[in-house]
Each structure stands twice: as C-alpha cells, then as structure tokens.
C-alpha cells in the first residue's frame, strides 16, 4: 500500500489497560524517518502511555511495534535504547547531587586503564556533545543548581549520548519560558537536519503548527488521525482533540467597584541561606476583582516570592497584609485561612503522589471543624462526597477517589490541586503556573474559573511564564527580573515581544527601578 514513505516507527493496533481503565485502544501511530512528529490530545488521552510503550517502560496489552520495518518486542527501556530510541519524561530523572557530565554518562562512563571513571575524558566528551548538538551546558556544574530548562537539556543530552536516533519528548515545553522554548525548537530543527527523528508531546497548538511536520491526534485512548501540518489548522486540531468544535466565548470580565486592597505587600525582601538577596523591595497591592500577574523568566525570584507569600521562606524585611490583617508572622496554616495557594511543582509541593486522590483533595480542610465529627475525626461521608463532586466539576479523569494519585495523568494531577485550592472559598488566590500541563480545554476552564473568582471579588496573584496566559487574563502585569520589579504594565496594547524584552531585562521601566525606599 503506502510502501513509498519509509516509516521508522510503526505502532500497530496498540492497546493498553490498567485494570478497568483503558488508556490506549487500537492506537495506530506511524512516524516517518527524519521528521518531527507531534502527538496531541486531552489530559488522560493516553499520550504518555503510548510513548512509555514505545520506550519499553510499559508493555502493551496487545499490538505490534515495528522499528525500521522490523517487528520488535519492546521489553525494557534498555532494549529501546539499543534500538536507538531516547526519551525525556514529563518528570525528569536526574541525580541532583551529581554533575551534568556524571548524569549524562551514568552507566556508560569512559574508563581509564585502571578501570575507574576517567573524569577528564567524560567532561571533554560531554563538552563536545554539547557543542555538536547546540545544547549548551556546563559539564562540571551540579544538576541541583540548574534551572528546569537546563535540566531538560541535560536529559536530552543523556538520550543523545546513548546514541538516540529517535527522540521522544513528553511535554518538554510545559516547563519552559518562551525564550527557552525558542532555543529548544532551534535545537530540534538542528537535530532534524542531522537526520534524527523527533516525537514531541505538547498541549500548545501554536507550537505544534510551528515545529511539527505531522501531527497525530489522540482522544480518549484512540487515534483520531494523523495530519500533515500544511493540511490543517489549530481549530481543526482542537476540534479533533475534543470531539467538538471549541466555542470559546470571550472571557466575561465584570468590573468591580474600586475598594481597599485585599492583599498588600510592602517592601518585601528575601535573602537565601548564604545571604544573597533574592527579592529586593517588592511592593504591590491587589484589590478585589483584580488579577495581578508577576511575569518573568524562571529563576528571577518567582518561586521565592511564592514561598514568601506562603510563609515557607522567612522574610528579611517587609510586610504582608491580607484582608486588613498583618500576616507577616503568621504560620502557613493561618495564612491558608485567608489565601489559597497553587504551587508550581505539582509532584513535590502540590501533591503527595503516594496518597490517594481523596487525601490530596481534602488537604487543608481536614483540620476544619466543618469537616470533622466526633473526637477530631475527619467526616469521611462528607469528604468523600466532596471528592466526588470535585472530580466531577473539574473533570478529573480517575478510577475513583481512593486510587493512588501517582497513577493519574500529569494534567489530571494538576486538576486535583486546582480543585482543592479553588474550593476553599478564600478571597485571595495566589497561583503559580496554574495551567502547566493542562490541555486546551482544561486550561480554558481554569481561566474561566479564575475570572469567575475575580468577578466575585477575589484578589488574585498569578505567577506565570506563559505569555499568552499573562496577556489574556491579567489586569496588571509586574515584571520580575533578578529579584526586582522592573516594570508595571497594562496588558492592553502590550505585544508579547515587548513583554519579552522586559522579562529578559533588555528593557526596564524608569520608575520601576528608581523606586528606592530609604531605610
């Protein structure tokens, strides 16, 4: 039939079930040698599962895999690596205390004549590999000191060092800033020119159109077809993915009467453990019905700002006032009775992955009297009903609330955090990267929920690196650069390019940096 195109990967009638959940149903997936192939689909559609099958992490319940036309049984990642497949997972798998080079060469370190690791050769090798691929890293730096974007480079280099010809990237752009994204895409193009095949999972349709040659759409575990970039558009892809034409009415923002700020931050400064100043004199206030966005490239103090607002990091100076009360010295539990917090890293700070979905959903209300009965016992009847409701409203795809959170897809794990935090009914919401890893529909739903909270008079602080999101829902944008607020902008008439300039420090607002508080 279609023998002319040479397929490097063919996955034929792949099915995979986990107990009663069928993650893949007769999926057909073919990749042409030397192309960039995107896989898209809603959260829980089975994208990660399919790629885990290709990489030998999971065994399919049924189906056949062909690499270069030959049928193979992919029994382990080792087998996949031998066949020239490399994979960068949604959650990185690096040893933080090891250097970049040690991580990349782990398991196949160059040896000297005594049989011990030849460090010099290892560093040289990684240096060369890094130059050849265009993925710049410092081989001798420890991984724990690297930003997420750099860690991802290390992961890609790790795959390349094992001779990967087919590279699978599971949502690589979810954790990247727009600039890092462009760098990554440049590298991918370069690799394509070198003859490598790339499979990339992403939720951002704009990226798909930018980088992919062919696009396979998965929906509820089934293939909805493979399309060539030139023969389709974002809208068609979205409707294939969701099974209906997306009808996004413009977000309905209601203006709220001006009133006193719900959240007031004054002169906030934070130093890290070794005395370096991470945040310098941050000032802002958020009034009811307003969304204030902290934009910036990752690593410029956003995580520290979040932790400082939560009470996880001690302030070196400054005031935090919520609903008129000084909470600067309050503990996390007390702060959470005013503010809801959505942290950026779902796998460590947002969830306990080994606990059940229920236990994650009730974190925070477990200690409130309304949810207790008898001698400080959790009222399970009530909390289970709540869990069911939240799973329903936030369409969390799970096999029930008693299941271990680990087994949910990435996007559905994220929804648990959103459901939990947005359900508290607090007047202040502080969220970091709330839509990271969510599909188009779910991201839209979250934006609607945030706007709904805004319309009902909540004050919202959004920490985001996603320019589209920033421009879509903010009322005020504050740009954080090297721990300082360097610009205060209005989203109206602001172009992504200009915002980008501020974020990278190429442009600063005069009053932004001149504000100096004598103390």
């Amino acid at each position, binding site marked *: 039939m279609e023998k002319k195109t040479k397929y490097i990967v063919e996955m034929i009638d792949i099915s995979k079930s986990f107990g009663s959940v069928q993650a893949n149903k007769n999926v057909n997936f073919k990749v042409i040698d030397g192309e960039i192939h995107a896989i898209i689909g809603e959260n829980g559609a089975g994208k990660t599962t399919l790629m885990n099958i290709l990489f030998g992490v999971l065994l399919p319940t049924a189906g056949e895999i062909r690499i270069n036309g030959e049928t193979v049984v992919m029994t382990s990642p080792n087998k996949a690596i031998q066949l020239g497949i490399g994979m960068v997972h949604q959650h990185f798998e690096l040893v933080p205390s090891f250097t970049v080079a040690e991580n990349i060469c782990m398991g196949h370190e160059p040896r000297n004549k005594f049989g011990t690791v030849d460090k010099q050769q290892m560093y040289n090798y990684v240096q060369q590999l890094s130059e050849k691929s265009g993925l710049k890293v410092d081989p001798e730096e420890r991984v724990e000191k690297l930003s997420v974007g750099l860690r991802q480079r290390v992961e890609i280099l790790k795959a390349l060092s094992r001779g990967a010809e087919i590279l699978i990237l599971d949502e690589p752009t979810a954790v990247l800033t727009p600039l890092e994204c462009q760098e990554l895409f440049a590298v991918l193009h370069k690799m394509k020119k070198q003859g490598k095949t790339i499979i990339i999972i992403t939720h951002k349709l704009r990226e798909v159109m930018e980088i992919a040659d062919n696009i396979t759409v998965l929906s509820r575990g089934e293939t909805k077809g493979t399309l060539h970039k030139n023969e389709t558009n974002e809208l068609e892809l979205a409707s294939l993915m969701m099974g209906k034409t997306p009808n996004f009415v413009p977000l309905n923002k209601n203006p709220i009467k001006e009133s006193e700020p719900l959240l007031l931050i004054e002169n906030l400064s934070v130093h890290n453990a070794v005395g370096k100043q991470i945040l310098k004199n941050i000032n802002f206030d958020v009034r009811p019905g307003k969304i204030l966005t902290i934009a910036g490239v990752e690593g410029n103090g956003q995580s520290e700002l979040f932790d400082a607002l939560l009470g996880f990091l001690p302030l070196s100076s400054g005031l935090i006032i919520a609903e008129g009360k000084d909470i600067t010295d309050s503990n996390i539990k007390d702060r959470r009775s005013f503010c809801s917090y959505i942290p950026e890293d779902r796998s460590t700070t947002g969830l306990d992955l080994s*606990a059940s979905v229920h236990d994650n959903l009730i974190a925070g209300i477990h200690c409130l009297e309304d949810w207790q009965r008898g001698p*400080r016992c959790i009222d399970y009847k009530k909390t289970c009903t709540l869990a069911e409701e939240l799973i329903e409203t936030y369409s969390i795809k799970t096999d029930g609330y008693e299941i271990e959170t680990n087994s949910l897809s990435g996007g559905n794990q994220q929804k648990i955090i959103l459901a939990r935090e947005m359900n508290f009914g607090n007047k202040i919401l502080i969220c970091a990267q709330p839509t990271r890893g969510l599909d188009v529909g779910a991201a839209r739903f979250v934006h609607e929920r945030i706007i709904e909270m805004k319309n009902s008079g909540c004050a919202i602080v959004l920490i985001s690196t996603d320019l589209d999101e920033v421009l879509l829902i903010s009322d005020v944008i504050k740009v954080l650069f090297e721990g300082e607020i360097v610009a205060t902008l209005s989203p109206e008439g602001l172009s992504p390019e200009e915002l980008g300039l501020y974020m990278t420090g190429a442009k600063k607002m005069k009053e932004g940096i001149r504000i100096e508080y004598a103390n």
Partner: protein
Amino acid sequence: MLTKKYLTPITSVIALIFALFVGAIVIALNGNNPIAAYGALIEGSFSSIPHLASTLSIATPLIFTGLGVAVAFKAGVANIGAEGQLYMGGMAAALIVIYVDAPSIIVIPLALLVAFIVGGLYGAVPAVLKVKTNTNEVVTTLMLNYIAILFTSYLVNYPFKVANAPIGMTETINDAAKLPVLYPGTRFNIGFLLAILAAVLIALMFKHTSFGYEMRIQGESKVFGRYIGINTDKRIVQGMFIGGGLAGVGGAILVLGIQYKFVQSISPGYGFDGLTIALMAAFNAYAVIPISVLFGALRAGSISMELNTGVPSELSNVIQALVILFMAAQSTFTSTLQDRISKLGFRKEQRKLNEKEVQSE
C-alpha cells in the same frame, strides 16, 4: 531504605518462604533433618494450649514494639530505637510498682501509663534532635539503645539491686502489680488484649482522625505537608513519642506479666524484632498482630526445637535476618519479577495473535 511501594503483604510472605527455605539448607548442612527441626518448631509453638499461650505471651511485647516502630515510620522517622525505649519503659514500670503500694486497679494502669510516658520521652529525644539540628535519627536512636540497656543495667546492679541475686535485678514485684493471667498455669496475660487494643487504636487514629491524617501525609512527603500547613516538626516529635511510648509499654508488660521483676538485659532483642515486624507489616497496625504471633512462635518453638532435635535456637535469629535480607532484595527484585511475569503473558498474547493471523490467511 525499604520504601512503601515495595512493602506489600506478598513481599513479606515471599521473603518468609525464602528465609525458611534457606534456613532449611543451613539445618541440613549442619547434618540435621530440616523437616524434623521445623516440625519440632511448630509443635513447640502451636501444638497445645500451653504452647500457644507461650507463643502469644512472647508475641505481646513484639506487638507493642512492632507498633512503636510502625507509628514512627509512618510519621517519617526511622526508629531503630524500640529496644532502648522498651528498656526505659520497663524500668519505669518496675520502679513504680516497687514503690507504689496500691491495689491492682490503680497500680497496673499507673505503671503502664508511666512506662508509656518514659518510653515516649526517650523516643522523643532523637525526634527533637532531628527537627532542631537535623541529626540523622537512625544514628541517634541506635545509639540510645545502648545507653538505655547499660543505664538500666547499672540501676539494677547498684541502686536497686536485690541482695544475693546472681545477676542484676530488682526485687520481685507485689502480686497486686502482676498482670492478670488469661490461661492458668501460664504467664499468658491480659497484656495480649491490651496489645490488640493498641493496634486497633493506632489503626483508627491513622484512618479517621485529622491528627493521624497529618501524621501520615507529612511522613510521606514532608515538603507537601509543610505547604498545606501541617506543623511537621510537631507531628514528627509526636509520632516518635507515641512510638516510643508503645515500645515502653511493651517493656512494662515484660516486667509486670512475664518476669515479675526487672532483670538486666531483660529483652532478647524484642525491639529489633519490632523493626522487622513493622517492615513486614508495611507499617500497617493490624498486620503487625499476625506477624508478631509468627515471630513469637519462632522464638517459643525454637527452644523445643533445640531440646528435641539439637538444632540451636539461634536459628530463629538466622531466619529473621534472612527475612530482612530477602525483603530488601525484593525491593529491586519484585519489579523485575512482575516485569517478567507480565512479559510472559505478553508473549502468549503475541503468539495467539500470530496464530490468528496465520489462520485468517
């Protein structure tokens, strides 16, 4: 360390079977008949009511130490110090009953309560060190064992030594302070019922109370616990207090129910057994009970095994060590094994598919 993921009832059973098997080889290599030896072991532990009673009376302190370790681990603290906590609790109980002359109804609960508090405080010390100074609790709890053993040994050899005793011990306790016996003629006592009650209470605490919820959530993931507002330091110390307290009560039951005095080196390693038991039970309070009974049987039966077949009773220690070894080995092994099994299934599927294709062609 053994993580929760790999600790399942199946792992424990597999480990036990392997351990018994290797134990059998050891017996055979020593020129004995393993079947006869194991037969004598079972006979000595379950064959009659008195035998069963002695099995259960050994199981009693084991349930307490097993629970003590399990609670601490659930709270995220690796408690290797149950042995020391047992000694301190036992000593405290002995001193109470020696110096407080009161009817049973008062003196027994009082002694148990004091044992709980003393054992608990002794467990809380390494927990406080952990949260305040970030000291590794494995090291501190381990060292505190020796301090407790030697300290109590000093007490019964000098200040509280009873005259003319061959080894250090306190005087025998009053009848009023002895735990009521459940089966006449043995020392099987109500301590066993208390142990079961304790297991039920601990299980209920973790399952139903918000205190227990906080304790286990922060035990699984400390950062997450702090992010959602749990005072993790407090929960860690409380977890170790409860854990140490339970081990301390185990010591009290040895004194009030078995020995009727505090003797130096009163425990033949019940605290360390508790560690094995808790690991095998995957820190589940209910599972601690049957596993403790099994270990009680091993200890009770090994004595009659030695008498009848000449196989040294230390074999029970060998088997325990092997159980731990196999459990640890399985943490890497089970996943491979499961992999193999599912691969076998997969190959079969593939073959069936191939056959179908051939047929349809």
